């Protein structure tokens, strides 16, 4: 069987890639996709640790709710992105400064 550390390593690498993408990219859509990567990495960690202690399914239940919240987050985030695009004709997150005085 595959040791649990390998799964954690994959999750860590994906989390790193996602967080760097969220910080470096300025395209709102790609930043949202990076957030999805982050949530997926955390889900992988939860499921791997749950598999290491298979007495109950607490980790999997937690991952299930993370998926549900991530879906809601994607819907609302994309709606906000569309609204910003309508106002400023741009999806760059550093050009969204409507609240700046």
């Amino acid at each position, binding site marked *: *069987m*595959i*040791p*649990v*550390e*390998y*799964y954690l*390593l*994959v999750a860590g690498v*994906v989390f*790193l*890639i996602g*967080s*760097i*993408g969220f*910080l*470096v*990219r*300025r*395209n709102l859509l*790609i930043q*949202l*996709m*990076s957030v999805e*990567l982050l949530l997926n990495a955390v*889900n*992988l960690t939860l*499921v*791997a640790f749950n*598999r*290491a202690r*298979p007495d109950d*399914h*607490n980790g*999997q239940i937690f*991952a*299930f*709710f993370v*998926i*549900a*919240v*991530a*879906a*809601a987050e994607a*819907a*609302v985030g*994309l*709606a906000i*992105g*569309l*609204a910003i*695009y*309508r*106002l*400023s*004709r*741009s*999806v*760059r997150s*550093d050009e969204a400064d409507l609240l700046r005085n």
Partner: protein
Amino acid sequence: MNVFSVAFFALAALATIVGALSTVLAVNPIRSAMGLLLSIGGITGLFLGLDAHFLAAIELIVYAGAVVILFVFVIMLIGPDATRPADSKAAFSRTAGAILLGLFGLVTGILLMRAGGGLHALPPPRPEYGTIDTFGHELYTKGLVPFELATALFIVAVVGAIAVARGRHKGEETPQAKEGES
């Protein structure tokens, strides 16, 4: 059997990381979405390797079936403006990314040095571990209240998404909206 599971894990991990990289590196958001799709496929494979059958199915249905499609819809709705390049003013963010990379390497190194005792092989699970039967039973006993709260969250999210994305009606347009329209 063992060789098969190792090869399956390697393939899924490779797909996950390559997909994540192409999500972050692609200039065109459509390619980013396809990279996200590849990454989600890989994570589904990893879930299968961890005996989380139900979560693997949910991951495919919710992410590949709904979230990525939503992203592609929005990218196509926005059109060519979604591909404007030039992340020029990102010097600070790049530094932050480099620092993050260094921190990750540092933490991984420290953990590997301190861990000792080698790798922890996964124990063989009960035969019913991760099946829809047992998972559903635990979800509807231990997780019933958050499950019901999640439905409320979805209703709020859907109403909010519609209200935000639909914009303003005529008669209540802000000056900025008019400016954007013309």
